[in-house]
């Protein structure tokens, strides 16, 4: 039964629409989900204590820490890497001097794919979309003058994650910092590589074995390291909807927890070191609801499905990056505004760390000026706007809670579907998430083409010739420099140590022995990432793109 007041509103609404019809027949989110014109108490069913509760308390809908940003602001962590290790080391020192609070390494494509800079696959790619790292020498230069007991470092590295983690440990130990002290994250999320980002090397089962080895090794030896950053970011960038991002990411998370348990670990021994990474797209409320739903689903899944007892295993901690795919090459200054709105959604959604994109990133890697504006955007949000002064300010908003509930049930439907298929690895083998994303991405493109969705400066408010903005250029000489360095290292290292460590690696790969200690030996002998991956490619084989479209 509607209240008299609500009835009165409906009558008034009809009159208003009679005079001025609605702007659109249907209002939808960016993901194409219908949005009601108004939400009220009757649209949101929740038991406050059970479904929302308090920050830092199960089910963590309102945040994972009891004090949230009152204690400490989110970590401002700009993803950065280009050219050689020297170039990127300078950028890191600049960013730290500007008030950035954590590091985040972008590696160039050959490193991501386990190839050396002198490989035929690396031609034209060296230092282009990240920093070139071939051997431990590059990592030593990359972190030169940066005390690894004082910063935390996130490394976006997946298929070769074990190797880069080993290099980081080796650099820290050379600085006199023990592996028990270092803190940071490797992305190490291979499942979303098959689903979306596509920087894979080995087939799924072999990849999961490497991940199990990392989980076991870090649980015993690198206790402050976040072993997997389970990532929805790339799923969204590949064109998924918000619900698909949420569902496939959590399904990947479930896959990793199962893998850890199958490796013989107690769930509470490794689950607290799993973290997440989400996209912040432009549909403000949909994004905020996504983060809140993610926390609640994860908490319940960990507790009810996996029997976790430690609340830290149930807390979904996450990094956020604003949506690269929301930026436009046209009128690039507009990207500053888009990024600010997306960053605000991440903050209101309770993120633990944040990367804000730079305005020039649809054209090239960001210039120092552009990345400074991006960092300042976070600082303005944190220190001027007041949004960080109270915890979960949108909690209890009828609309946000309505969206949170709806996204939770839609995501759960996907997760159940994946369970029915036999789990996420099977679903990936069947191409299920890949095809769902390709479908959604095409649908959105069609909505842009028809003008049903607006992209300012692209399909509306278009301007003619624009004066180009300044962009960062990577000189082609960087490739020669890097190849030269690699050759020098190959000449100066002990080839006997390299050969011996690579043989040990092959033996370990063929057996059930943990790969981490042998990889550590190999990187310390200055074996290159290409050499190490070639050994593993020989044992494990390679994954081929099923090329769905």
């Amino acid at each position, binding site marked *: 039964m509607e209240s008299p007041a609500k009835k009165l509103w409906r009558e008034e609404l009809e009159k208003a629409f009679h005079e001025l019809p609605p702007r659109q027949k249907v209002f939808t989110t960016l993901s194409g989900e219908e949005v009601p014109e108004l939400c009220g108490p009757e649209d949101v069913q929740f038991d406050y204590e059970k479904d929302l509760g308090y920050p830092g308390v199960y089910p963590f809908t309102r945040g994972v820490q009891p004090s949230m940003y009152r204690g400490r602001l989110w970590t401002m962590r700009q993803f950065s890497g280009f050219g050689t290790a020297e170039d990127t080391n300078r950028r890191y020192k600049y960013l730290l001097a500007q008030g950035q609070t954590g590091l985040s390494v972008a590696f160039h494509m050959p490193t991501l794919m386990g190839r050396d800079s002198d490989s*035929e696959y690396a031609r034209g*790619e060296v230092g282009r979309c990240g920093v070139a790292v071939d051997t431990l020498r590059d990592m030593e230069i990359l972190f030169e003058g940066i005390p690894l007991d004082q910063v935390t470092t996130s490394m976006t590295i997946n298929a070769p994650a074990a190797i880069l983690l080993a290099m980081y440990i080796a650099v820290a130990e050379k600085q006199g910092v023990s592996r028990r002290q270092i803190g940071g994250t490797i992305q190490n999320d291979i499942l979303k590589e098959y689903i979306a980002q*596509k920087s894979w090397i080995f087939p799924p089962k072999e990849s999961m074995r490497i991940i199990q080895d990392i989980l076991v090794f870090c649980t015993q030896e690198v206790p402050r390291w976040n072993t997997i950053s389970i990532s929805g970011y790339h799923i969204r960038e590949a064109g998924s909807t918000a619900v698909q991002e949420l569902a496939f990411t959590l399904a990947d998370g479930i896959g990793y927890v199962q893998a850890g348990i199958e490796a013989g670990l107690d769930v509470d021994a490794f689950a607290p070191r799993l973290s997440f990474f989400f996209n912040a797209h432009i549909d403000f409320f949909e994004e905020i609801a996504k983060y809140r739903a993610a926390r609640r689903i994860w908490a319940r899944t960990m507790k009810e499905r996996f029997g976790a007892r430690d609340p830290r295993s149930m807390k979904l901690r996450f990094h956020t990056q604003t949506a690269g795919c929301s930026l436009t090459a046209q009128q690039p200054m507009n990207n500053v505004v888009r990024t600010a709105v997306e960053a605000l959604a991440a903050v209101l959604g309770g993120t633990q760390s944040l990367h804000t994109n730079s305005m020039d990133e649809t054209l090239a890697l960001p210039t120092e000026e552009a990345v400074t504006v991006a960092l300042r955007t976070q600082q303005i949000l944190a220190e001027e706007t007041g949004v960080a002064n109270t915890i979960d300010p949108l909690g209890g908003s009828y609309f946000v809670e309505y969206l949170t509930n709806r996204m939770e049930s839609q995501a759960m439907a996907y997760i159940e579907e994946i369970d029915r298929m036999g789990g996420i690895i099977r679903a990936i083998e069947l191409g299920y998430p890949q095809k769902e994303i390709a479908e959604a991405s095409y649908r959105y493109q069609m909505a842009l083409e028809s003008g049903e969705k607006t992209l300012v400066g692209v399909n509306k408010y278009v301007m003619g010739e624009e004066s180009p903005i300044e962009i960062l250029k990577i000189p082609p000489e960087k490739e020669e420099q890097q190849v030269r360095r690699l050759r020098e290292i190959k000449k100066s290292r002990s080839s006997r140590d390299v050969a011996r460590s690579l043989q040990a690696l092959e033996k370990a790969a063929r057996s059930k022995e943990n790969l981490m200690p042998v990889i550590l030996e190999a990187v310390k002998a200055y074996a290159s990432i290409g050499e190490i991956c070639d050994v593993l490619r020989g044992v494990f084989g390679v994954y*081929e793109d099923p*090329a769905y*479209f």
Partner: protein
Amino acid sequence: MADARKARILIAKPGLDGHDRGAKIIARALRDAGFEVIYTGLHQTPEMIVNAALQEDVDAIGLSILSGAHNHLFPRVVELLREKGASDKIVFGGGIIPAEDIPALKKAGIVEIFTPGTPLSEIVEFVRKTVGT
């Protein structure tokens, strides 16, 4: 009499980057527009792309790259086509490509470069005009 054979287009991803959202959308839009589309999948060397183009006897090759390696990889594809006596195949490309790189790419034989935000209809129209249906 018009040739009943549909024009064949190879959509290819040279280089190591995995950003295939654009390539797949283009592949699908061209298929929906009535072309025969072959998609190579990811991580292709220029040699692999040219081999696929010859094997599949395509009329045009669309290259997509977002890693910044276009200045090397795009011209290399054209060069290899020339070496194999297949320079009649039209090569076009797209991706994160700064405006200032475009003149040199065109000079190297890439017929057209499409940058972010290009409407699909424009690309389909281009293929229709240069390749025919």
